[in-house]
């Protein structure tokens, strides 16, 4: 059994005129010490999952059905007090926007200490020591502890965020797009730092990102989401032998060193709006291989290998699709047709 497990999780946002199902029956499990990457385009529901795990969905969002199991215990619908006991100690968050993740009017140290104080009763000296240790872990100078967030660069702020996330030695760490808004070199450093923490401290981790390359480089397992649905998940062969055309498209979006001459292919068009889902496969509209079946009937996740599953009607033709998906023309034709 996984440390963290989602079972048929459905999350809905109520909008002014109706509701949108942002996460639709997603089931996922993260095993002890595993590093899972959750990938998808923005708006596919992956950040909503992170928020649901920590119980910080915005006011208009709620889990309508399904379970979030932490070590076998459903944490959906826990009282605030019960949830607060789990937060940060059991499950910590490295947020999307470290830029605004700190309260601007308190020092970084005060805010880290605040996280400690909310959960454990440590003497001042022990707190100091622990915070120092965390700063060393993420490679920040301890003299910067008394600085205010705005005195930090973006990368430093994100490292301080990591230090804050690790301060209570949490069981699970959720990193929600931890490198948004940072420049490429800093992105690399931050991801490297997180990976290091994962390997050295044997942490169970969930990395949420839109970047396939990041997952390929860092994670043990991968889950791909599209328009609120899980479309494929598995270990490394998801990259090597993707079965869902969407995954194939995503894999195309990052440069392949072995195949320098090939043009970068991206998937044309945008995902369907959450409150107007098509009846069949949600990817059908953008899929170059879609048929009438795809447009009318929704495919179920089915096993395609050891711990590898994909939700496509044509997993049998995956080999052929993979070949065609590598070609630029394939995706262009799809765009023109619709």
């Amino acid at each position: 059994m996984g440390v963290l497990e989602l079972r048929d999780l459905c999350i809905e946002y109520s909008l002014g005129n109706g509701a949108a199902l942002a996460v639709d029956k997603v089931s996922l499990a993260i095993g002890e010490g595993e590093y899972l990457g959750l990938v998808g385009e923005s708006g596919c529901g992956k950040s909503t999952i992170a928020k649901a795990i920590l119980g910080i969905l915005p006011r208009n969002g709620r889990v309508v059905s399904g379970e979030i199991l932490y070590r076998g215990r459903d944490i959906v619908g826990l009282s605030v007090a019960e949830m607060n006991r789990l937060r940060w100690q059991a499950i910590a968050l490295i947020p999307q926007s470290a830029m605004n993740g700190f309260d601007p009017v308190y020092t970084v140290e005060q805010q880290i200490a605040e996280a400690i104080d909310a959960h454990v009763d440590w003497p001042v000296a022990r707190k100091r020591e622990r915070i120092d240790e965390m700063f060393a872990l993420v490679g920040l100078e301890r003299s910067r502890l008394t600085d205010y967030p705005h005195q930090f660069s973006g990368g430093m702020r994100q490292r301080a965020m990591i230090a804050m996330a690790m301060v209570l030695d949490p069981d699970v760490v959720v990193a929600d797009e931890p490198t948004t808004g940072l420049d490429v070199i800093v992105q690399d450093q931050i991801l490297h730092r997180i990976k290091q923490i994962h390997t050295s401290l044997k942490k169970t981790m969930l990395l949420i990102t839109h970047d396939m390359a990041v997952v390929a480089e860092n994670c043990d397992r991968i889950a791909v989401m599209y328009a609120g649905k899980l479309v494929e998940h598995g270990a490394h062969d998801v990259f090597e032998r993707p079965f869902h055309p969407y995954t194939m498209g995503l894999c195309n979006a990052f440069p392949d060193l072995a195949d320098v001459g090939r043009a970068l292919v991206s998937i044309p068009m945008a995902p369907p709006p959450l409150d107007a889902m098509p009846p069949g496969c949600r990817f059908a509209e953008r899929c170059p291989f879609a048929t009438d079946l795809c447009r009318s009937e929704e495919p179920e996740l089915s096993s395609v290998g050891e711990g590898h599953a994909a939700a496509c009607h044509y997993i049998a033709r995956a080999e052929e699709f993979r070949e065609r998906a590598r070609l630029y023309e394939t995706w262009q034709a799809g765009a023109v047709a619709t």
Partner: protein
Amino acid sequence: MNNLRLYLLRRLALLLFVTAAVLTILFVMFKLLPGNPLSVFIDSNFSEEMIRRQKQLWGLDDPLWLQYVRYMWNMLTFNFGTSFFQMTPVRDIVVEKLLHTGAMIVPAVVLSVVLGTLLGSWLGWRRGSRQEGAVVIGLLALRSVPSFFVGIIVLMVFSYNLGWFPPGGMVSIGGHGDSFLGTILSLDFLYHLVLPCLVLMTREITSPALLLRSTMLEVKGSDFLDILRAKGLPERRIVMHATRNALLPLVTDVAVMMGFLFQGQVLLEIIFAWPGVGRELVTALNDLDYPVAQACFFVMALIILMFNFVADVLYAFIDPRVALS
């Protein structure tokens, strides 16, 4: 920390510079403008000799620079001389009138800020609703209605017509308390305070309300609140974080408002016959009592400058981003 000190020093230097400049303008104004300040009490009965003695007495024979230096020194040491008509030091008069003005402004500002803050948070909360829109338009319109006309209407209705409140003054005639503190703690004073305070509030409540509405919206949307929740902080800690951030701009606003009101309430003091510094200035000008007028003007200017200074300093302390940028 060094940055903060530097900022404070710069701000202090600016305060001194502006104060000196305002004083100089006041000096030049009285020197350049036509009219001899002594003409008020010098009339045709005065002999040449008497006029010269008077001029000497008031220092008007000295070279201009000496007059200037002496004037600056006197003003900065709050040595305003003696009133032409009331045989008391101007300083005593001005201090008393300032206290009276404060007795009207401070309660009005405190109430406005408390109620305005509550109203503003409510507006931020109900954002986008029909009531919210109506209240905001109402507040904006209220802000543009001349408050002295509101004062006149209020006085007509509640005092002359309904007879609920006294038609003006700070205490009943003959009802002077023995001390300022004794006076402002008396029921009689509160009774007189109600109407002017209400009128001031109709205007002053608008700015904290509108300000808090927009900052509340801004703070509510900030990411750090999510992080605080994720950290497992108790609700009251999160509210504390949000409030402290939302109140930041209010601090400046209140200080500037206080400073401004010390000169802006002249009209209300006239309407409500409130013996404050603004009414004293008008009286002094009508009587051509220049030492008093000069002192009133100077203290009003000084109060505005002080409150602006306090606003900036406070802001630098509560918002660490200010001093550093």
